[in-house]
């Protein structure tokens, strides 16, 4: 076990845990944002630099600060490490810079984008960015590409997080989906516009943090915040069959996998469940799905991230009072 201090809160985690996951055991507003790291995907993370934090002391053995900010999603903890996230001005400024970098070539066509309302980039920019741009040049654009009959790639919106590439690599036996080119000309592609044709290809839509990969059976049907998420399951021979149905009135407009509070898929679902079973009669309904994030889907029921009650119980009285006065944090329920 390793004991680390994250933004002044002590937490003990198993050796080898990343700083980000240590922060997630604390929970609440101190958790660094992650645009590319995705727990279920091996090897993901380290790309977007959204999660950079300052390590003020490396470990008990070597308490020197690390010279550069580190990506918390891929840096393992050391016993005695002291990490600063929201308490470091430098980190917050760098994060503003990252938002700006991600947005300079982004079309920002949220009003016509299917991801709007559940878009990680919208959330990231809103929470950590500035509202102006200094970029005057023409933005990079690409043609829309159909990847098979069910998925559309709108590369212009892609932030190159590589999540879909890892998904295609790890979920499907024959990988036909990857990154072509390099630098700011890189694009996600399926060599010669190949169809991704296998039972789990639809999951790339769920892992995509932005509106770059979209479900063609759902495109332009409805804004997400007008739909009602409902948990449901069915007996599926290929996957666990646990999904979220997105209703508008009586119609199921879209089906997705269930996600946790960090937007990560809990169980992968197959294409049959995702694209073909759009009747209520196909499903056993469990009840309304809880949307854990501060998303517009939970219209008027916005939730602030909450610190793990267990961690609070172990804190000294004075630091609890400090935390309560610290705006991004909310304690308990």
């Amino acid at each position: 076990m390793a004991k680390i201090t994250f933004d002044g809160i002590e937490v003990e985690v198993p050796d080898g845990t990343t700083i980000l996951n240590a922060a997630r055991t604390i929970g609440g507003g101190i958790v660094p944002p992650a645009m590319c790291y995705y727990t279920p995907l091996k090897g993901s993370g380290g790309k977007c630099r959204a999660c950079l934090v300052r390590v003020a002391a490396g470990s008990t053995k070597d308490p020197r600060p690390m010279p550069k900010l580190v990506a918390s999603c891929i840096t393992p903890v050391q016993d005695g490490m002291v990490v600063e996230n929201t308490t470091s001005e430098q980190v917050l400024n760098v994060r503003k810079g990252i938002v700006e970098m991600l947005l300079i070539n982004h079309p920002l066509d949220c009003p016509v984008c299917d991801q709007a309302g559940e878009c990680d980039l919208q959330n990231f920019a809103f929470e950590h960015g500035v509202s102006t741009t200094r970029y005057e040049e023409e933005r990079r654009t690409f043609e829309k590409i159909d990847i098979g009959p069910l998925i559309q790639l709108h590369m212009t919106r892609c932030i190159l997080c590589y999540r879909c590439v890892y998904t295609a690599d790890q979920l499907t036996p024959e990988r036909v989906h990857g990154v072509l080119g390099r630098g700011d000309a890189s694009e996600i592609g399926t060599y010669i516009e190949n169809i991704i044709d296998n039972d789990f290809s639809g999951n790339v839509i769920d892992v995509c943090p932005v509106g770059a990969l979209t479900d063609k059976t759902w495109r332009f049907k409805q804004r997400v915040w007008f739909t009602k998420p409902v948990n449901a399951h069915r007996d599926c021979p290929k996957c666990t069959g646990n999904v979220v149905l997105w209703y508008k009135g009586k119609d199921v407009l879209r089906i997705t996998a269930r996600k946790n509070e960090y937007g990560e898929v809990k169980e992968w679902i197959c294409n049959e469940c995702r694209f073909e079973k759009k009747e209520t009669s196909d499903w056993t309904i469990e009840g309304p799905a809880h949307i854990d994030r501060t998303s517009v889907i939970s219209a008027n029921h916005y939730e602030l991230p909450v610190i793990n009650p267990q961690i609070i119980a172990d804190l000294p009285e004075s630091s609890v009072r400090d935390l309560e006065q610290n705006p991004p944090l909310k304690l308990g329920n």
Partner: protein
Amino acid sequence: MDETTCIVRNTWNFSRFYHHESCGQCSPCREGTGWLEKVLHRLEHGHGSLHDIDLLVSVAKQIEGNTICPLGEAAAWPVAAAVRHFRDEFEWHVKHPQEATRPGAVYPGKAVLA
């Protein structure tokens, strides 16, 4: 390269190289190197503003230290250093675009140094 070399053109050439070499994995370098190149292109071709010079320093600072590999720094440092040491020549490009973009133009300030 000698004292008649145009610093702005030279810096633009550096950043053109790094823009081309960036692998595109991490956002600061992928987007930042292209941005630097475009702003320098603008300055070199006489369309820049004084504001652009500070923008260069700021973008270089946003890349530096935040990338996966040192290519980000390699791209940012020459730009920041050029502006630090030769700011007058950058300003000359902004204030006298016609002179500065003439083929074979040499920054007159240099003659004093020689």
